[in-house]
């Protein structure tokens, strides 16, 4: 009898080395794509301190020094930055797949997805006005907004606390639309069943959303056991298939994985959106090279 092992445990998502790495990445990042052209214009307005002044808040590391209110500083002796209510906010939206299928892999794909979300969200906090995190199925935490570089820790804490829940991709549509179409939409998932994403992608594109698909790639997406008796189980549905792997079956499985990748690419291509396959590094690998690809993609 084959014993059913427990689901893989996701290691600590944001340890100190990763936080250091994240700050380095954000400091090096030049810019981030916001969204539509009118939003680019709004961004320029913000940079020129346009909009209605609504108050001050204490300066935190990472705030744009140009937004420091020096007069207030002279009065109080402390650094404050001005807060404006822009006509059009420049934000980004992160849609996270919290399903159990992301627990597959060593390290689990969910670890790479959460760290990817932290990098993209951090870039949005640094270079844009805020970021909205949409996590379908997470209940009260399904929709959260963060603004300013000072919210980075809050963003990481929020991401860290997201549960593993099963939800359909369609559930993301009302959540995204509830806040208006705020900025560029980054959808992080394994897109294991591309057909289920057709409807939400089409709906969001009809409403003018600019979408980038992020797929943390794992070795399991390409490599297949060469031989042996394997009981494969879908962690989301619990369905089990016992297979006796030989060379012919391994080759057929590789063909199926290639076909899946082509379907995923075709899905995003048909809606004019890019799908980024980001090769996730090991859990304890904090070299900056592997993460610069994300920064580069965000800057395009």
């Amino acid at each position: 009898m084959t014993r059913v092992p427990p689901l893989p445990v996701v290691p600590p998502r944001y340890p100190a080395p990763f936080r250091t790495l994240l700050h380095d990445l954000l400091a090096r990042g030049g810019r981030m794509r916001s969204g539509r052209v009118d939003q680019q214009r709004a961004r320029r307005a913000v940079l020129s301190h346009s909009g209605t002044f609504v108050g001050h808040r204490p300066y935190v590391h990472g705030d744009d020094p140009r937004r420091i209110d020096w007069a207030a500083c002279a009065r109080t002796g402390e650094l404050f930055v001005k807060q404006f209510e822009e006509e059009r906010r420049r934000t980004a939206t992160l849609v996270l797949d919290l399903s159990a299928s992301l627990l597959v892999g060593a390290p689990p794909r969910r670890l790479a997805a959460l760290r990817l979300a932290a990098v993209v969200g951090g870039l949005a906090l640094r270079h844009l006005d805020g970021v909205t995190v949409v996590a379908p199925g997470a209940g009260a935490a399904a929709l959260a907004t963060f603004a300013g570089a000072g919210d980075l820790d809050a963003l990481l804490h929020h991401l860290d606390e997201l549960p593993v829940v099963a939800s359909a991709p369609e559930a993301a549509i009302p959540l995204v639309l509830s806040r208006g179409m705020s900025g560029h939409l980054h959808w992080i998932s394994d897109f294991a069943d591309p057909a289920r994403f057709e409807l939400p992608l089409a709906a969001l594109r009809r409403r003018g959303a600019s979408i980038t698909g992020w797929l943390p790639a794992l070795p399991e997406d390409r490599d297949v056991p060469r031989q042996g008796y394997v009981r494969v189980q879908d962690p989301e549905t619990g369905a089990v298939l016992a297979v006796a792997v030989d060379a012919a079956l391994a080759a057929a499985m590789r063909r199926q994985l290639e076909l899946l990748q082509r379907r995923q690419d075709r899905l995003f291509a048909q809606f004019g959106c890019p799908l980024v396959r980001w090769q996730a590094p090991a859990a304890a690998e904090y070299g900056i090279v592997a993460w610069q690809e994300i920064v580069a993609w965000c800057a395009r």
Partner: protein
Amino acid sequence: MVCALTFAEPQRLWWLLLLPLLLWLALPPQPRRHAFTAHLAQWQAAHAALRRRPPRLAGLRFLLLALAATAAIGAHAAPQWRSGDGPRRLVVLLDASASMGARRADGTSAFAAASALLRERLAALPPQVDVTVLRCGGPRLRRQGASARMLQDLGRPEGALDVDLPALAAAVAAPDTAVWTLTDGQAQAALPVVGALSCLPATGPNAALLAVRVVDRWPLPQLSLSADLVLFAAAPRTGELRVAGAVAAAVPTRVELTPGVPLTIDVELARTAAGGVLELSLAVTGDVLPDDDVWRADLPALPAPRIAVLTDAEAGPFAAVAAQALAVEVGGTVTAASPGAEVGLLLVDGGTAAIVPGQVRALCFGCRLDAAVEVVPWLQPRVADWDRQSPLTAGLDLSELRLAAAFRGVLPPGEAFLWADDDGGVRTPLAVVVDGGDTASVHFAFRLQDGNLPLLAAFPQLLRRAFVRCHGTAAAITVMTPTTATGEQDLQSAASAEDRPLPGFPTPDRELAAPCLLLGLLALALRAFVR
């Protein structure tokens, strides 16, 4: 409590130890592991592309295979379902002692009534009941299975009941074994208290010939019989002792029998020369057990031999005289010894004669049997002793026997009955008898003229006894009536008890081998559909 499911061949269940091997063979190939995947649909599609059926329900397939193997092994062990409790075996203790031959009121013997009752009950027994019949009394016989149900060759009632029936019944009785005792209660202090009991009493007066002693004077026709009679009855009775068969006509002897008092009657008879069966019977009116009233013996024919004498040149007249005297005594004749002539006794004195010891009825005195054998003279041997128990010399006085010479090396190997003191105090045979069954030969190491044996008073008797001994077993009377069984004659008092019926026997067991095989085939068929 009796387990309902049993196996006739339970040792075959050891084959079940092969099931782990079956499990090992059914295990999937190594390595075996479990993996979570987000690409289950791709695995299914790859399987479908290769037209493979996934090994689903492998556990169920093995269970079905194990079930089929277990069913087959179970069928091999001959399973049976016992439909009910009850004895599976019946042991019958049949009293076949001599008293069971007594006539009952209906004219049949108790043994015949017991046999008829047995046949009737055994015929009604379920076929799966294992029947054993033990004959108690006389020759002990055991019949098992079909021969027991047929009461095959149980003989006739005879002998004493030398078995303690209550103890035997108690020893045989078991939860699955029923005991049934059939007896007349004769010669028993108590009847069995265990198991079924059928008491078949046959009481009444009985006179019996307790013992008959015979004094045989063969080769003479005289025969003396001494018969012990006894009567077990309420009052004295008169009977007749009759003699019939191979004797001259004898008048029946009237006897007055007193109950419980033995009476000895002596009868002098003259047997016929041809021999035959001699029957002595006691006839008493109202005797219910006639089997113990008769005594039978087979008498051998009287010899009418031709006696031949073979002597060497130095022999004296002793051999011829002895042969003549012997011929007169037994009614024979003396003939000349010639090659090829058939004689009943060859009397040899000295010289050399090619006689095979034990195969020729011969009486040899100092005769060399093989010319090649060198004989050594033995001067003045001193007779030391003779066998006081041998039929040849018992009761004879040979103390006056004196020998001038004898020969060493002339005696063949045989049973010595006369010895001489050799030098150094060693006893050396002077005469032997070589037994060959129906024939025998007697050899002396000295010639008649070398001693005073012919002059002794015991010589004629020794000569006649040697003649009888040379005829071996052919001269013996064979008693055909078995020894009277002790305690089987008094039919006035016998132990009795209430009859107890046989217990109920369960219906036949149901053989489960076929259903087991069917179950195994069904499991295999189902396994073929489980993929």
